[in-house]
C-alpha cells in the first residue's frame, strides 16, 4: 500500500486520483502505524513550512516518516513535502524541518511570488527526469548543500533546484499530479523505482 500522508493541508485527493488513474492502490492517512507498514510514502503539502511541521509533529508522524526513509522505503515529497526534508526555511524561522537533507529553503526574490503556472523542467542528471513542462504553485524552493542531489532545475528569474534525488528519496517542487501527461509519466517512473 502507498500511503499519502495527511497533514490536514492541501488537495490530497488529486494525488490519490492520479495514483488510481495509474492503477496503484493508495490510502490517504495520518495513522503512524499505517505509515510504518507502507511500501511507499508520499508526502504532499501546501501552506506554510512552520504550520506543516507543527502538524507533522502533533500527529506524531515525524519519527515514522524518518524511520521509513532510513529503512530504504521509496519516498516521494511534493512541493512543501520536498521543502520539509531540509533543515530550515526562510518562511518559518526557528522551526526545524525534518533535517534528512542538508540545506535550506529560500524565497524567490524576483518576479511575481508565488510562481503560479507551467515552467520548464531541465534535467541536470541522467535518471527519471525528462525535459518537459510541469505545474508550479510556490513562493519558496530548496537549495541543497550537496549540489549533486539536484536532479533537475527550472528557471524563474534564475535557475532553482526543482527536483532532488538521493537513494530512495525523490522530491519535486512542482505538482506532478497536476502536470498532465508529463506528471503522470513521472509518477509512473517513480512508482517503478
Amino acid at each position, binding site marked *: 500500500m502507498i500511503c499519502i500522508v495527511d497533514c490536514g493541508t492541501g488537495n490530497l485527493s*488529486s494525488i490519490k*486520483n492520479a495514483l488510481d488513474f495509474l492503477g496503484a492502490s493508495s490510502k490517504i492517512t495520518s495513522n503512524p502505524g499505517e505509515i510504518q507498514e507502507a511500501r511507499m510514502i508520499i508526502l504532499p503539502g501546501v*501552506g506554510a513550512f512552520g504550520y506543516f511541521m507543527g502538524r507533522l509533529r502533533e500527529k506524531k508522524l515525524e519519527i515514522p516518516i524518518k524511520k521509513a526513509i532510513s529503512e530504504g522505503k521509496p519516498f516521494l515529497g511534493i512541493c512543501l513535502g520536498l521543502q520539509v526534508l531540509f533543515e530550515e526555511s526562510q518562511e518559518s524561522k526557528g522551526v526545524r524541518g525534518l533535517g534528512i537533507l542538508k540545506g535550506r529553503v529560500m524565497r524567490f526574490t524576483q518576479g511575481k511570488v508565488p*510562481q503560479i*503556472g*507551467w515552467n520548464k523542467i531541465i534535467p541536470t542528471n541522467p535518471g527519471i527526469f525528462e525535459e518537459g513542462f510541469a505545474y508550479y504553485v510556490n513562493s519558496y524552493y530548496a537549495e541543497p548543500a550537496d549540489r549533486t542531489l539536484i536532479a533537475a532545475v527550472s528557471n524563474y528569474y534564475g535557475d532553482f533546484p526543482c527536483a532532488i534525488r538521493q537513494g530512495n528519496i525523490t522530491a519535486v517542487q512542482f505538482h506532478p499530479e*497536476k*502536470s*498532465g501527461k508529463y*506528471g503522470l509519466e513521472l509518477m509512473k517512473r517513480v512508482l517503478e523505482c
Partner: protein
Amino acid sequence: MLAKRIIPCLDIKDGIVVKGKGFENLRQVGDPVKLAEKYCKEGADELVLLDISASAENRQAMPEVVRKVARQIFIPFTVGGGVKNSENINELLRAGADKVAINTAAVQNPGLISEAAGIFGSQCIVIAIDAKKEGDLWKVFVKGGKIPTQIDALEWAKNAERLGAGEILLTSIDNDGKGRGYDIELTKQVSESVKIPVIASGGAGTLKGIADVLIDGKADAALAASIFHYGKYSIADVKKYLQKKGVMVRI
C-alpha cells in the same frame, strides 16, 4: 520562465456545457467530463468550469461534476458560478477543484476575499470581474453580467489583490461571444495595475486575437470557449501560432 496559459472555459448549465453570445442565447455543446478530458489531451494548460445555472437548486449538481472531472483530468482547474461563501468554496475544493472563482459575492462582500484567502490560501482564490466600457472607464457588472455597479474595474482589481486574491479572471462583456478579439486596452490596464496573474476572457475569436491579448494586453493566460467548442481552432493550432509569434507556451 512561465509559459503563457491557454484555458478552455466550460460554461455549465444544469450539468451540461453550453455557450452563449453576450451571456445569453445558450446553446448546448456537451458533457463536461468528456469535454474536459478532450481538452486536457489536446494540451490545455488549465480549465475553467463555470456554473451558470439559474437557481441554487440546480447548482447542487456541480460538486459531483467537479468530482468526476478531478478523477479524469490531471491539470489544474478553476470552478466558479454562484459561489457565495466559504462553505461553497470549501465544498468545491474538497470535491477536487484547484481554485474557486468568486464574482458577485466578492463585490457585495469584499471581506469574503480576505476570509477565503486566509482559510484556503490566495493561490486558490480567483476573482472574476465582468467589465463593460462606459465612456473612458470600465464598470463592473454582477449577476452574470446583467446588473451594473458603479465600481471601476481597475480599482476593483487592485482592491481584490490587496485583499488576497491569487488571480484575476477578467471578462469583457462588450467582446464576449462576438469572436472579434479580446478587449486589449482593458486587459492591458488591469495587467499593469496588479502583480497577480490576469486571465483574459471574452471574444477570443481568432489566433491573432489570442496573440494580441498575451503580447499587447500583457495577460498571463487567455481563456476561450466557442473557438474550441465549435472546432474553429484546436488548442494545438493556438499554441503553434503563439510559438511562431515568440510567445512561450507549453507544447
